[in-house]
């Protein structure tokens, strides 16, 4: 017992303070990956059956809501396509080179193999690693909503660990899409929920409920550019308020990504790598 406790303490020390065990851990995790994938495949039919049953309950009301949403989005799409065309023409005319966006990255698709294990844990394991060009710090997005999921924390040859945006140590410079001067830091709202907070937004800036928050990318001439390309959607503003005590606005943001049911993700790998 004493020997095992001592061995555990040595493992914690070595694993936490150095990367000496990363190779061994990566290889072992790679060996475990097929078993995790197999268990996932076995459980999938049951999971799908549960989802199907749950979907039936509110299918009718959801269908009605989605039909009206499609009408609105069609109109929005027409306007947006016109704006994109105009943007491309103006950029070409001005020879304008902006901040890196999502199109400047190669998209590596991956399955989520390990979900968060408890209330403290805000990370997931994915089935791609350094063999696919993934490195620590790479940005991860959701393939469906294209919303921001988090960043790669540790990368091994065939697997990687992704720290979610809801982790207390996550912070992303973000901006209100409709009010581009309202820049702040997206941080988890706490309390165990997925709600986010757009912090450090000046009281003088205008932020409205329903506004879309996107990643700001690198601002100014910082020595350390942001790892996040500009324009990745983060979420929508659900409420905003201010008081005399806090020098900044209190902006609550609902994330675009459903962190509780991540099945797959996209890792953005710089094209030059």
């Amino acid at each position, binding site marked *: 017992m004493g020997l095992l406790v001592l061995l555990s303490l040595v493992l914690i020390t070595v694993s936490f303070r150095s990367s000496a065990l990363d190779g061994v851990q990566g290889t072992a995790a790679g060996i475990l990956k097929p078993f995790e994938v197999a268990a996932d495949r076995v459980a999938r039919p049951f999971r799908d059956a549960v989802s199907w049953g749950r979907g039936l309950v509110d299918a009718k009301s959801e269908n009605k809501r989605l039909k009206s949403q499609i009408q609105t989005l069609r109109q929005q799409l027409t306007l947006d396509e016109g704006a994109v065309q105009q943007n491309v023409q103006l950029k070409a005319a001005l020879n304008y080179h902006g901040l890196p966006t999502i199109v400047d990255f190669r998209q590596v698709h991956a399955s989520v193999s390990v979900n968060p*294990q408890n209330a403290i844990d805000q990370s997931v394991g994915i089935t791609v690693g350094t063999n696919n060009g993934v490195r620590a710090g790479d940005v991860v997005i959701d393939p469906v909503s294209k919303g921001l999921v988090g960043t790669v924390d540790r990368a091994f040859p065939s697997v990687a660990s992704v720290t979610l945006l809801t982790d207390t140590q996550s912070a992303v410079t973000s901006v209100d899409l409709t009010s581009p001067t309202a820049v702040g830091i997206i941080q988890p709202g706490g309390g165990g929920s997925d709600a986010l907070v757009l912090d450090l937004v000046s009281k003088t800036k205008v932020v409205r409920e329903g506004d879309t928050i996107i990643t700001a990318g690198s601002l100014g001439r910082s020595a350390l550019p942001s790892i996040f390309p500009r324009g990745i959607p983060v979420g929508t503003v659900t409420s905003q308020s201010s008081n005399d005590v806090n020098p900044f606005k209190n902006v609550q943001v609902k994330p675009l990504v459903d962190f509780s*049911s991540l099945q797959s993700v996209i890792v953005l790998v710089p094209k030059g790598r």
Partner: protein
Amino acid sequence: MNGIKAALVLFVAALFQLSVLTEYRQFRTASIVLVALLSIALLRGSIFGAIAGFGTGLLLDTATLGTLGITSLLLTVFGFWIGRYGETTARDRFHAPFLSVATVTGLYAFGLVGLQFVLGQPAPAGLVARGLPLALLLNLVLTLPVYALIRRLFPPLELGDRVREVRLLG
């Protein structure tokens, strides 16, 4: 033989937890691995429980790409402790698995918070405390079938096999 059986049971439990149970947020606080480990420790004793706990912890830390040793340390200690309980006062008591699971669920959750705190990692004790009642409930619900299954796989030892135990006379 017992070792291989325990390794297989805990490996399957770990896979189930990693790939299936944690898929649903409401079940994320439950730990079938913890319940399985404590059941095995109760039936096979302290040394067996400690070794099984160490191996299971290492497996979980490896699969989740977390800091190696954290889960091992906790599961080694709790595996040993509950194993010792099984060797002494818990013998043939119906409530023993439930009491063990309830106690260790709380201690494991706060032990994890404590270790995270010591390592300078986020350690939201309030969040863990709020999730604890559900974790207790789910783990206690899991205890009945898991303990019954493991008791079939690891029948209680005969008196003669318990060589390390203290025999109470009189």
